[in-house]
């Protein structure tokens, strides 16, 4: 009896959370087709496809922004994972002086907001000729996404350990081959999480992209903010849906690529039972 009450309570909690997450997404879809929706009606009065046609007319510009957004975030995600693996291995598997200090500095960007960093680094980036360029934006994003990747991969590396790799070395594999054949497949779920997280950190970045990209480098957020400020909800909702869809697609590709690497397949980092 008591167990039944508990499971009802759990179901209700889960339902409330899921509803809170999904209802806003529905408003997004609703607004795509809304032509007129005057106060105080609960549902829009007139639906149309006008906004969609308007955006379809700007296909060329849109495709370009889509491409540069995906390019920047994917490069940032992959570099974060690679550098994350290197740093995590250096900290966890080797002995060297100043290890604590190195660890502190890798996590430091968590404690300094991106806005503060962006305003401080702009002058340096201008001097280095990185401002207004995709390379500069990628480097800046990388600095912000790296702590997330390192944290995840360090947990993974600590759990996997180095025993299997050492075994492979003893059996005659080269250091890289030993890593590639033993640790890498086992780390894959965690690497997938790190790649996804870094992609998101880069993809959501507005201020840093604005400062370093200087309006030259156009990404999704740079495109969105003016529409939100001017209150053009139709267009904003279509762009949002489009870009979220593309993000999910990209994640699908990441998962597929990771799955090819893993022995057991299935990239879930958390499944209960």
């Amino acid at each position, binding site marked *: 009896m008591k167990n039944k009450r508990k499971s009802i309570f759990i179901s209700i909690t889960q339902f409330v959370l899921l509803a809170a997450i999904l209802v806003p997404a529905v408003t997004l879809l609703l607004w795509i087709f809304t032509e007129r929706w005057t106060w105080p009606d609960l549902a829009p009065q007139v639906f149309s496809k006008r906004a969609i046609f308007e955006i379809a007319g700007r296909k060329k510009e849109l495709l370009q922004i889509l491409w540069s957004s995906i390019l920047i975030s994917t490069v940032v995600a992959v570099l974060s994972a690679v550098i994350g693996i290197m740093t995590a291995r250096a900290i966890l598997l080797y002995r*060297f002086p100043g290890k604590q200090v*190195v660890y502190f500095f890798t996590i430091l960007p968590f404690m300094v907001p991106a806005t503060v960093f962006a305003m401080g680094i702009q002058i340096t980036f201008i001097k280095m000729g990185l401002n207004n360029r995709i390379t500069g934006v990628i480097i800046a994003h990388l600095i912000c996404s790296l702590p997330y990747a390192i944290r995840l991969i360090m947990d993974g590396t600590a759990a996997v350990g180095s025993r299997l790799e050492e075994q492979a070395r003893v059996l005659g594999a080269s250091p890289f081959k030993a890593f590639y054949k033993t640790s890498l497949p086992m780390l894959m779920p965690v690497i997938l999480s790190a790649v996804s997280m870094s992609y998101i950190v880069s993809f959501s970045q*507005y201020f840093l992209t604005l400062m370093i990209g200087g309006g030259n480098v156009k990404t999704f957020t740079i495109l969105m903010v003016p529409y939100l400020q001017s209150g053009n909800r139709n267009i904003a909702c279509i762009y949002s849906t489009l870009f979220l869809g593309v993000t999910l697609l990209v994640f699908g590709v990441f998962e597929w690529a990771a799955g090819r690497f893993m022995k057991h397949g299935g990239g879930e980092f958390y499944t209960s039972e």
Partner: protein
Amino acid sequence: MKDKLMPYVLLAPQILLTLLFMIGLVTGITQSLGVIPAFGLKKPTLLYYKEVLSRPDMMRSVLYSLRIALFSSVLATAGGVFFCGVCVMGKKTQVAVMRIIQLPIIVPHVVTALFIINIFSRNGILARAAYALGMIQEQQQFPMLIYDPHGIGIIMAYLWKEIPFIIYFVIALMANINGSLGEAATNLGAKTWTVFWRVTLPLCRNTIISGFLIIFVFALGAYELPLLLGATVPKALPVLAYQEYIHPDLRNRPYAMALNGIIIAISLISSLLYFLMMRKSVKCLTEEQ
């Protein structure tokens, strides 16, 4: 010999990026002390900090940002941990449910702002529902939930984003602990909630606090949501800092950096507290032994 060099080879890209990051940070801090040789400002001074802290409008911004960050991160952490507990003890969270819960993590803050406008603005669904139910007669009677001086809209947007983040951050560890040590406590006769309070929660504490700190600092220094959902007065710290930063009079730049300095100071003080707490908890453990 080769093994001695290896860690440094592995760390090379990390060190390069860290150097770049530190250049940004140090530049910001020296500029906040009024040292910008290019503009003919050379003598370090605390004047800008003093001025920023004594101007009432800027002080209001500091409090406004601090309140938003504190409210959103405390509520998000509490909500996220609560949900983790419910999930872990139920032991029947499907993969599909977890996927949906992770959805807000991939949604950029800009889009979250759009959601909040769609639902909570005076033209939004909630206001219309209140009218349909006869709770209000006019649009103006609906409370200002966004663009309001208390930052309610901003806090709600952060909650929508950060509760799932905390769940994502904590749940793997919590499931692990609950499965091993929690199981043991249950076998010894402890009740479900006792297990949660006395075993699972204390063991997850460090992870929970670091998750809390990440979202606290993020909310303190984020620009998008206060820009899109905030009131005209008071402005959030980063918004105000950027306004001073792009001021046509370049001598205003130290003010921007001083505001940034305040953000850094608050973040660093909170992380320092975190480290002190961690040290204390280690001491407690050793004393009990």
